[in-house]
């Protein structure tokens, strides 16, 4: 597996992975601030587990007698060190906190993690929490360095492209955001004049890929903008287009971009469908005499 690199790729929190089968996946990696709520949720669950255990053990103390403290200490040890590892092993890279926040641990190749990786990366969190702050900072008069600052983890995450902490680097893992995509179809054009204006666009006009993308981005987003803002944005592209098409200068800029969109994504597609449906179809814009079906 290899990581796709692009010399001039803009900075982003996404990472692309190409499998040996030459299939490319794009993941949005989760950085420290995306992971923090999940971590705090898991801490809260651990705290509730501790409280529940204390309640349970004190309730059963008459049965456990002198073993109560030992049971509690062992349970605390197991929860502290193996809560994350066990959940990530059996919930496919997720703890309850991660599932709630929609993030998941994967290997850097985009594969599910195994048990060893899950346990190790959670045990190594203790290193990422370094350096500790003494409880003297909160007024307790004893030099006990037990309050984590997470500075080491933060610096290491900042230094890596995939926001990996030390535990992740050692285990070859990363945390990604689970994407939920909604495929959007062709945008609805509420103004019928767009279709009418599209008929005035020269028949030999074919939008380039970048022009089609630009117009498509505009039409998909324009409903979120105010009318003056639409005018302001559309003017940039509409003015040179009006000049190219030889249209009147007072043509609505917004409407023109909608017409180009209609022509590129709707009218041409409808024509293509009709053409492919009919064996005697004539290419629009092509002179009849030049058509193979023209009468001789």
């Amino acid at each position, binding site marked *: 597996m290899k990581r796709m690199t692009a010399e*001039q790729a803009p*900075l982003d929190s*996404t990472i692309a992975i190409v499998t040996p089968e030459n299939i490319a996946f794009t993941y949005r990696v989760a950085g420290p601030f*995306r992971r923090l709520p999940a971590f705090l949720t898991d801490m809260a669950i651990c705290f509730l587990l501790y409280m529940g255990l204390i309640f349970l053990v004190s309730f059963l103390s008459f049965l456990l007698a002198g073993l109560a403290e030992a049971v509690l200490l062992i349970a605390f040890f197991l929860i502290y060190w193996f809560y994350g590892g066990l959940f990530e092993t059996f919930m496919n890279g997720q703890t309850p906190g991660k599932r709630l926040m929609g993030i998941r641990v994967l290997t850097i190749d985009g594969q599910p993690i195994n048990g060893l990786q899950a346990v190790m990366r959670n045990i190594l969190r203790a290193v990422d929490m370094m350096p500790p*702050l003494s409880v003297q900072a909160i007024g307790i008069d004893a030099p006990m360095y037990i309050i984590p600052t*997470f500075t080491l983890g933060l610096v290491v995450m900042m230094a890596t492209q995939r926001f990996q902490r030390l535990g992740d680097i050692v285990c070859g893992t990363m945390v990604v955001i689970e994407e939920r995509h909604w495929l959007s179809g062709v945008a609805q054009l509420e103004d019928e004049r767009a279709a009418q204006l599209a008929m005035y666009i020269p028949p030999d006009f074919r939008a380039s890929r*970048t022009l089609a993308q630009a117009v498509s981005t505009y039409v998909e987003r324009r409903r979120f903008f105010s009318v003056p803002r639409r005018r302001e*944005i559309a003017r940039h*592209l509409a*003015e040179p287009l009006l000049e190219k098409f030889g249209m009147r200068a007072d043509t609505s800029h917004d409407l023109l971009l909608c017409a180009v969109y209609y022509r590129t994504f709707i009218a041409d597609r409808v024509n293509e469908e009709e053409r492919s449906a009919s064996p005697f179809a004539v290419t629009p814009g092509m002179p009849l005499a030049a058509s193979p079906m023209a009468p001789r």
Partner: protein
Amino acid sequence: MQLDQTQIAIRERDFPELLDLSLHVTRVFARPLLLTFALGAIPLAVLNHYLIAWTGDIDYRDESPWQYLVWMSLLVFVEAPLASLFTTAYLGEAMFHERPTIRGVAASVAKVWPGIMWCVLILRGPALAIFLAATADPFEEPPSVNLVFMFLLAFGAGVLRAVRPFIVEIVLLERNPLRPRAEQKTTIGQRSVSLHAVNGGDLIGRWLGSCAVAGALVVALQATFWFASGVFLNNWDWGPVMTEVCAPLSMWLVACYFTVVRFLSYLDLRIRTEGWEVELRLRAEAARLTRAPI
């Protein structure tokens, strides 16, 4: 300059993603960011120390330097937008693959000095904060009444920054005039209202989140300095160096990081509300069209 080819991918992001991406941006542009931020912050840091040095002049065995730390925290909080001017100007230019020089950045800041003087130095409170620190009475008991005014000023500046966070970006990057010059030109005030007004609740929420993260980062950095001092210098006591060097340094470093966060949040707001990425794309396509036939 290719308008649709930016150094940072232009798309909508939520607040945690902006904080994460700011770490990336800080790493990639670490040197120019630190340089440009130092240009704004060092004079202010020296001035602050000179003004409140009397509060740190204590016997560390008997007293705590709380007055110095409180004064310094409030001063840094109020002055952070002023210190971030050069960094913001740098980020604005570097966004489009340009390589801005320090001189160029300083010149672009100098061009809009009336807006900076009024909107950043006076309205946002740094001028008044420096005045309060300069006129505080070292011998007043209980602690200076100026400190109370300083708290009120910081609160006011905080509220203003919560509802109008991107004034530095408007002044420096959009270059709107302070007063209307031509009929068509939007003033700084009008632009600020049009950009901020429709997103008030969201902006306040993000600002509160920023404050919480900034506070945690300052404490973490401060603790790291303390730990490093203990490990490398075998000095585990909180002394004058920790108070007068490490504490302000932690605050300014976090302020530098939050300059990047604020810049990215500004871009994000423009993308969400004004379709900035759409405008860039259309302008780039228009430039291509005028260069080549369809």
